[in-house]
């Protein structure tokens, strides 16, 4: 046992004198390819990884603790900071969980549902574009990075025009959405999604048959279906292993049961298959948005659920109806009091299964909120996936898993 002091600090994971010929490399936490604050302790035999130990927690902000100390509505902006690439999907997952706890899921107006589904799919596109950009950059394709960020910029402009924020959207409220679409927004969205398929074709033209891209992605980061399920994988990582499991399809929420879309699956189990999957998913998202646009004009202009017990009444009745104002005052100062009970609600975020477990004891503050973030489980797979791979592939695998540290460390 070493005696730690300031000159000779004690690292329990590092051994400086070893008999076997392995070397230990500390990857991160400040590594540009670690996609955030990931520290990866790699034990190498030559260039091959013998053991990988991911170390997380450098971005831990204690969101679950914060949630226990505030009212339900107050916590919603905090969920933005989980998966900050696609913030609306977190907002929505949380809002849906609370709505199911309150039992007002069906009372959300149809226009709000259309807008929410649109935003969710727009966020999926933003997230996938960001994934492709950074992943390609890690692997060495600089131009793809620039192209993807260009398109993502247009999508973020749309988000900005809707809710005023580019990253931390808070674009969904418990019981509906705060705003209607701005005039002309639909046209801009339509222009964006008509152009995007050509752009995706461009990316594929650059990457699909690209020798370097194929060499670095094919047969890299292989994980079998049983292992993926066993380690708690979800979303594209699971579908990349040949399991056709999409929560939008299997446990439909919002408008997904009315929409037609396919669930792309790849059974190559490797990074290249997952790349093809992401591209297909973007196309499906475009299809979904195309179906949503005509739905929007057929809806009534109502945006929030009419449950004055839990959700403030619209502005007009607040100004005219005394009791509505009183209820609003109670909801703002004290917060809503959901029934005693617990729910676990899973939604399909761009990264995978985003679950919110809420335990309510009937108080304005939740008793416990557990955030089930897909990236957390995808990072734990690294222990399994990295063993036996070469050190050059480590960056590919990390990038390919699409992990975001805001939601791993929460």
């Amino acid at each position, binding site marked *: 046992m070493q005696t730690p002091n*300031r000159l000779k600090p004690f690292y*329990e994971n590092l051994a400086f004198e070893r008999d076997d010929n392995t070397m230990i490399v500390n990857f991160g936490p400040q590594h540009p390819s670690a996609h955030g604050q990931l520290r990866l302790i790699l034990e190498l035999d030559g260039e091959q990884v013998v053991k990988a130990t991911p170390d*997380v*927690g450098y971005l*831990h902000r*204690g969101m*679950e*603790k*914060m949630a*226990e*100390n*505030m009212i339900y509505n107050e916590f919603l902006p905090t969920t933005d900071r989980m998966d900050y690439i696609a913030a609306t999907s977190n907002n929505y997952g949380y809002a849906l969980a609370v709505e*199911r*706890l309150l*039992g007002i899921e069906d009372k959300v107006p149809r226009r709000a549902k259309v807008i929410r589904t649109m935003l969710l799919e727009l966020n999926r596109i933003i997230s996938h574009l960001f994934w492709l950009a950074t992943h390609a950059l890690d692997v060495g394709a600089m131009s793809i990075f620039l192209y993807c960020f260009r398109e993502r910029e247009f999508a973020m402009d749309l988000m900005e025009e809707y809710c005023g924020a580019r990253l931390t959207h808070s674009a969904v409220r418990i019981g509906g959405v705060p705003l209607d679409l701005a005039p002309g927004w639909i046209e801009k969205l339509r222009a964006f999604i008509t152009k995007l398929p050509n752009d995706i074709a461009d990316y594929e033209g650059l990457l699909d048959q690209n020798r370097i891209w194929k060499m670095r992605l094919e047969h890299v980061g292989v994980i079998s279906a049983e*292992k993926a*399920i*066993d*380690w*708690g994988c*979800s979303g594209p990582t699971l579908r990349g292993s040949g*399991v056709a*499991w999409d929560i939008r399809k*299997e*446990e439909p929420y919002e408008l997904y049961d009315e929409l037609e879309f396919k669930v792309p699956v790849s059974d190559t189990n490797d990074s290249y298959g997952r790349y093809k999957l992401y591209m297909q998913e973007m196309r499906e998202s475009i299809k979904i948005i195309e179906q949503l646009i005509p739905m929007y004009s057929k809806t009534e202009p109502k945006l929030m659920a009419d449950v004055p017990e839990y959700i403030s009444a619209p502005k007009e009745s607040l100004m005219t109806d005394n009791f509505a104002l009183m209820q609003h005052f109670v909801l703002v*100062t*004290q917060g809503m*009091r959901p*029934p*005693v*009970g*617990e*729910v*676990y609600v*899973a939604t399909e975020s761009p990264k995978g*299964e985003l*679950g919110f*477990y809420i*335990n309510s*004891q*009937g*108080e*304005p*503050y939740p*008793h*416990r909120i*557990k955030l*089930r973030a897909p990236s*957390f*489980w995808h*990072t*734990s797979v690294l*222990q*399994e996936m990295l063993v036996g791979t070469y050190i050059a592939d480590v960056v590919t695998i990390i990038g390919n898993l699409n992990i975001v540290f805001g939601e791993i*460390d*929460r």
Partner: protein
Amino acid sequence: MRAYQDRKNAQAKVYYKDRFYVSPQLPKEEVDSDEVFAKDLATISKKAEVKEAYIQRGQLVIILENRHDIVAVAKLLKEKLTYTQLSEMSANDFLADRGEFEVFYQFLSMEKRKRLRVKYSIKEDQAVDSLYDIYKSADWAEREMYDMFGIVANEHPNLKRILMPDDWSGHPLRKSYPLQGDEDAQWYEIDTIFGKDYREVVGPEIRDTKRIDPKDTENFARIGKEVPRGANPKDFDENYDDFQEEGGVPLITRFTKKNQKTLTDRK
């Protein structure tokens, strides 16, 4: 006299309490109302003693009597009942209310499209049995539970903290742990970076994120109203006039006798 602090529950307290308000309960449906769940429950109750079972919001909730049954139940769920994924597990802290933790496991069956939750209660000093051998996803989940609540998982291969630093003291998600951290938390960074000897020099870390002290000239930027660092607050006593924009809406209208008006009768 020092203000009373509840040691067992150091969380933010609800400001307003209505003694006569009775919270509604989330409806608990009979398990027989769902065929698949009824069959699953029948199989499980042969293996383990089930204290209570009901369906809540479309998911089966099973409360086990004995904490050691979880391994057998998990094995059964995975191998016989197609609940192949452990999608989430953690604990609830009820130490202040009834002196126990409630551990929950959230299972998913992709074949049946069903979700199921298994729960059981343990005392503060009791451990749970690790599910690592059955579900690999229990690896990090149990580590997180240990980190956050201090619940030990027996036979876990690598049970150490995951989100908090290894040498942290206390378990943050317990209700007895205050939101801004305990006594040790405010010295943690000072001790690790400078050493314990420097406690007096540096002072404790300010962990209250809501704290704003406009008179503090050491740590706060005063945008647009900058003063030299460490300046004496008395030297820059400001009034509201400093914040008044030119031609803007008056922030404060000063009372002058000239402008006063006396109403002769009420409206």
